[in-house]
C-alpha cells in the first residue's frame, strides 16, 4: 500500500505562496478572456462539436493519416523520423545536429520537447540550446520548469523576472513588461542569427499537404524555423488532422479557448524546406514523430485525451490547478488534462494519484474546445488505480463496510443511531470540531454537523409510516 503523498505534498508546499497567488491571478485572467471571446462568437458551440469530430476522426485513422502525412513531407523535400520513445527521439535529434555540424540551437515553445527533456540531452552532448519563447527563455534562465502549457512562467511575478534579468543578463532592474520584453529580445537577437538549427513543436500537422502549423504570439516560431540552416520539428504522433478545412476549424477554437484571442498573433504554415526560389528558409526540414506512450493511451480507456489541442482552458478553470498551480502535478502536463495524459504516457506508478487531484466539478469539460470528457476519464483512471489496489487501506476497508451498511436497511438504521450516540460527547451545539483518523483533515479547517439524533428515516417511520 502506498500513500498518496506526492501531489499532495507538492501542493501543500505551494498553497498560499506568491507562486500560487501569481498562478491564480494569471489563470483567472485567461479564463475571463476566454469567456468573452466565446460569448462574442455564436458559432463556437458548433465549432466545438466539429473540432471534436475532427480530432476523433484523426485518432481513429491515425496510422493512415500519419503514413500519408509522412509521404507528403517526403515529397516536399523533408525527412520524417519515427521515435518510439523519448530516448529514441533524443538520439534522432542529436544525430541530425551532429550530421549537420550544428552547435547552437534555438527553440520555440514545445511541450513534447519538455516531455522528452531534449534540452538536458543536448546539454549533455555539449550542444547549446537557447529557448526563444519569452516564457521559456525565463524558465531556462531561472533553471525552472514550466508551470502551464501555454504560459510557462505564469507562476512568476514581474518583479521576480526583473530581478532574474538583472542578475543573469546584467540588465538594469525593471518590472515593466515592455522593458522586460525588450531586454529579452535584445539578448536573443544575435542568437537567432548565429544559430545553426531551430527546434520547434507542432500545433497541428495537416496530412493532405504534409504541412506543419505552428501557433505563437511572439513570432519567435517563425524566426527559428526560417533563419537557421536546419529545422527540426518535434511532434507528438496524435497532433494530426486530415485536411486543411479540418485544421481551420480546430485553429478557430484554439486561440479563443487558450488566451481569448480570435487568432494567435502568428500562425505559421511550413510545407517542406526552402525551395530554390524561396528568399529564406532552412536547407533541411526534419519532422520527428514521437510515440512515447501515445500508442498505449490510444488502445486504452482514455484514448480520447489524445484529441486534446493543448489550449490550457481546462487548467485555467480547474479549482485545484488554480489553488496549487502546475508545479504541484510534478509533470510537464498539469491540470485536468495532465492528470489523464501523465499516467497514460508514463504509467500509473507514481502518477496514479493525479486523477484524484480533482473535485470532479466538471468545469474542465465545460470549456474544452474539443469537448473531451475529462471527468469520465478521471473516473476511469481512479477505477484502474482502485483495481490495482493503490488506495489507502482505511479508504478501501471503510468503503467496503459502508457499502454493506448503507445497502442494508437494518444495518443502516443502526449505524445512524450509533453514529449519533458516539458523536454526542465530542459535539458542541450540534457541530463536531475535531475528528480522529482520516476525518482529521476535514476538521482541521471545517466543523462537521453532528449526525442527527433522529434520522429522517426514523422520523418518517415514527410519524408518517403506515
Amino acid at each position, binding site marked *: 500500500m502506498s500513500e498518496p503523498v506526492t501531489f499532495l505534498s507538492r501542493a501543500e508546499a505551494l*498553497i498560499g505562496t506568491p507562486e500560487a497567488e501569481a498562478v491564480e491571478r494569471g489563470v483567472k485572467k485567461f479564463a475571463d478572456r476566454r469567456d468573452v471571446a466565446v460569448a462574442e462568437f455564436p458559432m463556437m458551440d458548433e465549432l466545438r462539436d466539429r473540432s471534436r469530430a475532427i480530432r476523433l476522426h484523426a485518432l481513429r485513422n491515425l496510422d493512415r493519416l500519419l503514413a500519408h502525412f509522412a509521404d507528403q513531407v517526403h515529397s516536399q523535400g523533408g525527412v520524417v523520423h519515427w521515435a518510439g520513445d523519448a530516448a529514441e527521439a533524443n538520439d534522432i535529434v542529436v544525430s541530425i545536429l551532429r550530421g549537420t555540424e550544428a552547435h547552437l540551437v534555438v527553440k520555440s515553445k514545445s511541450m513534447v520537447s519538455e516531455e522528452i527533456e531534449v534540452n538536458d540531452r543536448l546539454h549533455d552532448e555539449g550542444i547549446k540550446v537557447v529557448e526563444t519563447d519569452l516564457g521559456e527563455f525565463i524558465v531556462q534562465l531561472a533553471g525552472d520548469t514550466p508551470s502551464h502549457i501555454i504560459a510557462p512562467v505564469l507562476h512568476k511575478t514581474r518583479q521576480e523576472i526583473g530581478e532574474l534579468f538583472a542578475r543573469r543578463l546584467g540588465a538594469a532592474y525593471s518590472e515593466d513588461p515592455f522593458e522586460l520584453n525588450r531586454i529579452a529580445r535584445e539578448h536573443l537577437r544575435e542568437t537567432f542569427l548565429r544559430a545553426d538549427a531551430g527546434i520547434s513543436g507542432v500545433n497541428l500537422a495537416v496530412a493532405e499537404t504534409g504541412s506543419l502549423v505552428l501557433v505563437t504570439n511572439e513570432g519567435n516560431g517563425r524566426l527559428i524555423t526560417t533563419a537557421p540552416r536546419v529545422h527540426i520539428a518535434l511532434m507528438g504522433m496524435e497532433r494530426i488532422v486530415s485536411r486543411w478545412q479540418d485544421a481551420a476549424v480546430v485553429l478557430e477554437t484554439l486561440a479563443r479557448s487558450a488566451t481569448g484571442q480570435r487568432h494567435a498573433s502568428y500562425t505559421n504554415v511550413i510545407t517542406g524546406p526552402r525551395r530554390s526560389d524561396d528568399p529564406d528558409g532552412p536547407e533541411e526540414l526534419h519532422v520527428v514523430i514521437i510515440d512515447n506512450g501515445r500508442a498505449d493511451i490510444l488502445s486504452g480507456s482514455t484514448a480520447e485525451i489524445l484529441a486534446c489541442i493543448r489550449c490550457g482552458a481546462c487548467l485555467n478553470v480547474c479549482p485545484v490547478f*488554480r*489553488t496549487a498551480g502546475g508545479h504541484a502535478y510534478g509533470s510537464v502536463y498539469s491540470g485536468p488534462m495532465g492528470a489523464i495524459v501523465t499516467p497514460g504516457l508514463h504509467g500509473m506508478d507514481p502518477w496514479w494519484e493525479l486523477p*484524484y487531484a480533482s473535485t470532479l466539478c466538471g468545469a474542465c469539460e465545460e470549456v474544452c474546445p474539443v469537448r473531451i470528457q475529462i471527468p469520465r476519464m478521471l473516473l476511469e483512471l481512479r477505477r484502474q488505480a482502485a483495481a490495482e489496489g493503490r*488506495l489507502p487501506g482505511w479508504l*478501501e476497508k471503510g468503503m467496503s463496510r459502508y457499502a454493506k451498511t448503507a445497502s*442494508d436497511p437494518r444495518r443502516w438504521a443502526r449505524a445512524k443511531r450509533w453514529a449519533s450516540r458516539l458523536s454526542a460527547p465530542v459535539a458542541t451545539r450540534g457541530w463536531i470540531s475535531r475528528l480522529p483518523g482520516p476525518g482529521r483533515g476535514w476538521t482541521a*479547517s471545517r466543523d462537521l*454537523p453532528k449526525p442527527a439524533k433522529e434520522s429522517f428515516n426514523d422520523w418518517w*417511520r415514527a410519524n408518517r409510516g403506515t
Partner: protein
Amino acid sequence: MEGLQVQLFVTCLVDALAPEVGRATLDALERAGCSVAFPVEQGCCGQPAFNVGLVEEARVMAGQTLDVLDSTEGAVVVPSGSCAAMITHHYIGLFSGTKREQQAKRVGSRVRELTQFLVDDLDTDLRASCNGCSVAYHHSCHGLRDLGIRGQADRLLEDLDRVPLAGAEECCGFGGLFSVEMPSVSTAIMDTKLDQVEVSGASLVVGGDISCLIHIAGGLRRRGSGIEVRHIATLLGEGG
C-alpha cells in the same frame, strides 16, 4: 383529491446529518400538491464509492437503490443535484452490460432534482420566503453541469433580496472524499469560496446540495462567521 404520486429519495447525508432538509422537501412537495411516499429501505446512492473508483462497492449501493426505487411508481425526487446525477447519469455506465442495465435506465428516467421538479415539471407557485435575508446562491457542480440546472432556483427565490455571488458557479472544494483525501487543497479552494461569500454581503447562503452546504457552513462556522447556510427546501415552507 389524490395528488401526483412522487417518491422521495432523501440521500444519505440528508437522512443522517440534515433530516430537517428531508422534512422541508417533503413539506414543499406536499404543498405543491404531490402525494409523497418515502421508500424506507433506501440508503446511499453509491456515489462516494463510485467517485474513488471502488466499482463493486458502488454497485452494491446502487443496486439496492435501484431495487428500492424500481418497485415504486412516479417521479423520484431528490433534494440534491449530485445524487440525482449519480442515478440519472452514472448508473447506466456502472451497470452497462449487466442484467441491471435496463433497470438503471428505467429508474434513471424517473429521477428529478427537487428544484428541477418543482419548477420545470410542476411549474409551482411555491416561493421561498425569508424575512430580512439577503441571499447568495451557490450552484453545486453536478446539478449545474450534469443536469443543466441553472435558473430554477432563481425562480423559487424571486421574492427574496438577492446579492450577486462572485464565482457562484465555481466549486466549493468539497468533492466528496476529495475533502478528506486532500484536505489542504480542498480547504484552499473552500477559502476562496468563503471569501467570496463574505465579500458578497449576504446574510444567508442558499444552495440545492447539502454536501456543498455542509462544507461551506462548516468552513464559515470555523471562521466565526455569522452568515447562515440553508438548503433551498427549508425556505419553501410557510414563513421560511
